């Protein structure tokens, strides 16, 4: 096999556990000419705000940025579905020359009248930052005229990374927080942050908390509603899913409203149980909550264990590779895969930071490859070298795995099934099992060669 060259500049973002002192570079802008799996600032903002179902999401820019993000996520809504529409100012040459403000104003006017949203988010894409539109001013004017919040999201794609996009989205959300009435919110209550209701995951999680006796004031942003966000400052605690996307908002809410936050992950049995126990601990003055939590965990685990155990027998000793957006998800996935008896041979993320990678190193076995902002060449080089049986990633990683005859599990926003929660863990196990145990691998040339 021809060796796949790794660019020198990329070496520092690749680490083989146990091979050298651990020093990884991360948080770097992607290297030009390298096919990064990352997206842009706008993508980060869009991911965070997308599930807010009764808001208008207007993408200010040429058509592509809107067309590619039309209805691409499995974020479910129990009511309105305005978030599944793709609205664009569709800038043309004339706008690029003379500015797009007029068109933006007209679009807002038209769309708000037509769809009667509870708020509007206006995303700036790359060229808006160049042609110098005063998006904030147009938004202010529309807000006054229409009587709903019209929030600019400063998400010009080139001005940073996806993380900056999370931040821009949180800034926009924070403008909503604190504008609604908190009258009937009880002192024992939480917001769920960083849960996007992919395949109905937020509903699962919310149900657990409510069964524990803790009302959920708002979910940001899964199955999101503007009015819930506006009153979210009335909650006693923010539970932040670790993706990091909503941490910025949690920080701002802590500072301004004194709401503490704890981190949670809902993937895998251990982390899911911990997420519930941690919240119960927080409300320790209500011992009944902890008692109920134990009951819920016991019941849920009992429900899924028989099948999980069956699945585990087939998966024992299989090798998995993980490449996901946020490093926190990788932590949970490592644990979940180990729970299923699998070994993790490669793990990487698009946006991890120093401490994330330190944690990863501590979690991983010797020889495991750790990658930051990897490109397809690197990913394929290492999944082949490590003879992975399964790859966990997003749509962009799937064909790499399949071409080389390796099983795949989609763990991105585009999937349709819930993988969070206890029920989600079972779904995850089934997904992995369905792929890894398929008889088609027997025909795959690479595997036939290895035997």
């Amino acid at each position, binding site marked *: 096999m021809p060796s796949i060259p790794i660019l020198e500049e990329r070496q520092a973002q690749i680490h083989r556990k146990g091979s050298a002192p651990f020093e990884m570079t991360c948080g770097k802008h992607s290297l030009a000419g390298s096919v990064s799996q990352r997206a842009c600032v706008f993508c980060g903002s869009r991911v965070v705000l997308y599930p807010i179902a009764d808001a208008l999401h207007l993408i200010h820019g040429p058509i592509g940025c809107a067309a590619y993000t039309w209805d691409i996520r499995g974020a479910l809504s129990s009511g309105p579905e305005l978030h599944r529409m793709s609205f664009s100012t569709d800038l043309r040459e004339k706008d690029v020359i003379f500015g797009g403000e007029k068109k933006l104003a007209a679009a807002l006017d038209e769309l708000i009248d037509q769809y009667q949203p509870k708020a509007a988010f206006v995303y700036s894409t790359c060229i808006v930052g160049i042609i110098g539109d005063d998006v904030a001013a147009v938004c202010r004017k529309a807000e006054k005229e229409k009587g709903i919040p019209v929030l600019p999201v400063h998400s010009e794609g080139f001005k940073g990374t996806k993380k900056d996009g999370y931040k821009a989205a949180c800034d926009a959300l924070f403008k909503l927080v604190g504008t609604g009435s908190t009258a009937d919110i009880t002192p024992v209550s939480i917001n769920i942050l960083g849960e996007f209701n992919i395949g109905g995951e937020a509903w699962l999680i919310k149900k657990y908390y409510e069964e524990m006796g803790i009302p959920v004031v708002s979910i940001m942003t899964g199955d999101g509603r503007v009015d819930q966000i506006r009153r979210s400052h009335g909650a006693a605690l923010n539970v932040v899913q670790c993706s990091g996307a909503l941490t910025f908002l949690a920080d701002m809410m802590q500072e301004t409203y004194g709401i503490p936050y704890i981190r949670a992950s809902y993937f895998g049995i251990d982390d899911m149980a911990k997420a519930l126990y941690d919240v119960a601990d927080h409300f320790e003055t209500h011992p009944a909550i902890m008692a109920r939590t134990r009951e819920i965990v016991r019941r849920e685990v009992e429900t899924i264990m028989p099948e999980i155990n069956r699945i585990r027998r087939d998966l024992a000793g299989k090798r998995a590779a993980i490449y996901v957006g946020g490093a926190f998800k990788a932590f949970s996935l490592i644990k979940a895969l180990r729970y299923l008896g699998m070994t993790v041979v490669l793990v990487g993320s698009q946006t991890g930071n120093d401490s994330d990678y330190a944690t990863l190193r501590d979690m991983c076995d010797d020889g495991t490859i750790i990658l930051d902002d990897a490109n397809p060449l690197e990913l394929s080089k290492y999944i082949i070298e490590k003879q992975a049986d399964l790859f966990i990633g997003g749509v962009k990683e799937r064909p790499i795995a399949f071409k080389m005859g390796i099983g795949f599990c989609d763990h991105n926003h585009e999937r349709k099934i819930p993988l969070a929660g206890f029920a989600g863990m079972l779904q995850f196990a089934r997904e992995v099992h369905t792929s890894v145990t398929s008889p088609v691998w027997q025909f795959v*040339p690479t595997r036939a060669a290895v035997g």
Partner: protein
Amino acid sequence: MKSAMRTDYYTATQNACNLCAPLGAALVFKGIANTVPLLHGSQGCSTYIRRYMISHFKEPLDIACSNFGEETAIFGGGANLKIAIDNIRKQYCPDLIGIATTCLSETIGDDVPMFIKAYQNGCRDEDLPALVHVSTPSYQGTHMQGFHGAVRALVATLAETASVEGPLSVNLFPGMVSPSDLRQLKEMVAAFDLEAILVPDYSETLNGPLWTEYQPIPQGGTPVAALRRTGGAAASIECGLVLSGEKETAGTWLEDHCGVPLHRLGLPIGIGASDLFFASLAAISGQPIPGKYTAQRGRLLDALVDGHKHFNGVKAALFGEEDLVAGLAAFCGELGIIPVLCATGGGNGRFVQTVQSVVPERYHDQMQILEDSDFVTIEKTLEALAPDLLIGHSKGFTMSRRLQRPLIRVGFPVHDRVDGSRMLHLGYRGAQQLFDRIANTLIEEKQKKNHVGYTYY
């Protein structure tokens, strides 16, 4: 008949029925052997475009990016482009790098041809890959403009006039069709003892077998050497009736600069258009139409007669890429299907006229033709038109669900079926497959609605 171009300029686009220009260009570059597409702009565009195409083709699809940062946007993208080319050369050793601009680099006014020249001057002694640039600001055109622009750029950059030895060759510019279509086109041309120089040819690069070892650039595609020979071909065939109104295309370039005669045809969808295509090949090669194809045509006509009652008077809505819709409209007319709506997100101001010219006049007063349209407009229009079925790409599914009308998937993207790459639209076999799919769908609808549950139709 009513037809409309969006006249009210100050209105938002709601659920676009087109994509942006660099997507088309990147797809073309994927069809050139040992080539890496490079988008000159910021990261998001290339990642989104990759994701979108991967969901359709289900193949690895590397598109590099020059990764603009904030400084780049201020000082220009020259330095980034150079680094990007350097890195691509190191990692992929390509024969060609296809550089398409994004809105960002266009807006800040990067002079890419100058950057390329400077790069080439800086590496005079090195064995450089061909560097082909196409300007693709999406505020000027859709993915189709990007597609055709890239085909033209390839030819204009590489074609050489020198006369060519060996078998007669034909330049074939098929437009944006499926890998299956491309394979079939090559077969058709080869059957006339002609060499097809297909630009682009992603029939293998985007629809290949499993790999035994990792391929940084998937095998297949039109070789760069073949692109150089386009200037010496016996003729060029350019498919697409809407495209044929365009003054500057690959075909016109070769005609103007190298004297290669140009045949401008519609996409060979349906009987009449396929007949014309075969007639052109016969004329260029001086050979009769091979028996294999007359047999295919014969079977198709036989099926048409057997099934004609299922079609006549049925109303269909067509949407998608302009030349595909025009081709399908013509085929519908041949079957007796009334294309009550023909809609595209692009069109270039030539769509309405083109569609009118291919559909029998007796249907015109029942038809609406929408150019530069979007899905919200299309759906609203369809509520009144009440078509029996929809023919278009996957993004029409939600609409088909709300309207409770079946959707026959064609073209790009097909994100919700497994066979987007393998769908056949062209030639007699393509017509046969379309015919079968449409007929079976109509029968299935009848069967579902009928309470008796007949097992024969």
